[in-house]
């Protein structure tokens, strides 16, 4: 059982309690995957700390004016609707009361199923023909317009990537077979 991402992030920032920290340290000694994630969180934290200055090249004057205008607009809108009118309890037909929640569940289920979690691109290559080659911990994918073709990696595999010429390459040990598997996707 691996710790959650939030606990790994808290550990990386030294913000876990004593016992949780000791348990986590014990787990990290034998789990390279989690150790690597902690290192990544630490790296991210250090980088964020190093970005202590404001981004250059931004004109703060117009931004401040826009923010003030939005605040005034919000206050004005609040005055327009106050005091709140007496709320009358709406009469909902019983059919709608049954159908709407069911419909909501169906549509929500479809929506959730059709939206896979975003993947973090690790290697990306593009060329003038519109071919885009992206390698991520989940797959190496070749896309062209509405078409796509991807070689997938096992979710638990530790995948390494490289780019050479016109190809992206990934390598991992297949936990089921024990064999090293090397995938290549080519743009030509």
């Amino acid at each position, binding site marked *: 059982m691996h710790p959650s991402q939030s606990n790994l992030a808290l550990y990386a920032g030294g913000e876990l309690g004593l016992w949780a920290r000791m348990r986590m340290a014990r787990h990290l000694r034998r789990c*390279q995957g989690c150790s*690597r994630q902690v290192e*990544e969180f630490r*790296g*991210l934290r250090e*980088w964020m700390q190093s970005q202590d200055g404001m981004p250059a090249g931004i004109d703060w004057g117009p931004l401040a004016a826009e923010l003030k205008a939005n605040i005034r607009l919000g206050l004005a809108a609040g005055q327009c609707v106050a005091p709140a009118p007496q709320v009358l309890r709406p009469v909902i037909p019983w059919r709608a009361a049954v*159908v709407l929640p*069911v*419909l909501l569940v*169906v*549509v929500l289920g*479809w929506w959730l*199923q*059709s939206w896979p979690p975003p993947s*973090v*691109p*690790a*290697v*990306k*290559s*593009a*060329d*003038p*023909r519109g*071919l885009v080659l992206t390698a991520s911990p989940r797959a*190496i*994918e*070749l*896309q*062209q317009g*509405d*078409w*796509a*073709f*991807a*070689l*997938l990696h*096992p979710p638990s595999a530790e995948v*390494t*990537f*490289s*780019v*050479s*010429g016109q190809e992206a390459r990934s*390598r991992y*040990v*297949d936990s*089921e*077979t*024990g*064999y*090293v*598997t*090397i*995938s*290549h*996707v*080519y*743009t*030509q």
Partner: protein
Amino acid sequence: MLVLGGVLAASAQPAPVQPASSFKINFPADSPVAVVNADWGESRTTTLGGALVLELHSALSLRNSSQARIRGVTLLVLAQEVTPGGKASVSVPSLDIRAGETFPVRIDLRLLRPVGAGGGPLVEINLDGVLFDNLSFYGPNRLNSRRSMTVWELEARRDRRHFKSVLEAQGPEGLRKEILASLARQADRTSLDVQVTRRGRATAVAVAEREHPVQFAFLRFPEAPLEPLSGLAQVSGNEARTPRIEVLNRSDRPIRYFEIGWIIKDRQGGQFLAGSVPASDPALKLGPGQKSQISEDASVKFSRRLGQPLAIEGLSGFVSQVEFADGDIWIPSRAALADPLLEQVLAPSPEEQRLTDLYRRRGLVALVNELKKF
């Protein structure tokens, strides 16, 4: 509304795939490997809006129908209808399959295409090559898999020899220390995110700076048949453009292919393997004493994982492989790779990865027994 919701839900429901209409396996009649079984168990299609998503999870069971031991196999995966010109391959190196034995090869892929577009098999799986233990090869070699598999096999022999010598000289505990050191290096190795844009500059530069030339520093291997002489790339922030490297053939044999690995150094002192620059000219024939220049017409932009930018300060290169005109291949020795910088940035060979994984999963005794097989 209910009907509409039902239709939407039904359209996203996965449906089982008809393998005969979706996939085609083309192995030559005289192939040294035969398909014993093809399991398409969890393959399915899903319709999402106007797109058809097909996920193929196949486990091919292949039998060595030759008399020689198989060391590696490469399968060519073509989805020409989906991405014209696009192709992929799945290679399994570091095998030791005797005559008559079977072994699995898994192919997991996903296709996305507009509904109603095209017909016929979506994916073709062909044999690109088989490498035997005497380094002979069978197959059409459309992807130059002969060279790749030979390099992996030579690396496997080099690394098994190394671990066996450690075992002989220092016993099982010495081997354990060596394997643990390898696992520690693998865990410490930092990977970079890389974005490559061919012909021109990458569009977004996270660290905007004026472009300036940076010279390559080279790690020179005394035994290498090729010597990098000079190299230059245009660098701007986290982006390096059009690397050009001049090399000299200092061997007595003509060379037809080589690769130069390159390492970048950032301002925080971190060093990372960026990839390799291959000699892309298929007609290359670099005679003894001759010089040649290779270049990549590409911009490469680097960032750390999670999108953190990085500023390039230096570039290093090293000769990672050389193929002579007669087909012989040179790779660096373990002694050459013991350079502290290379130990820090290079990924282990596929065989070292397999052996260390075997130790991690099944322990020292299993590893020692595995080494004794060779």
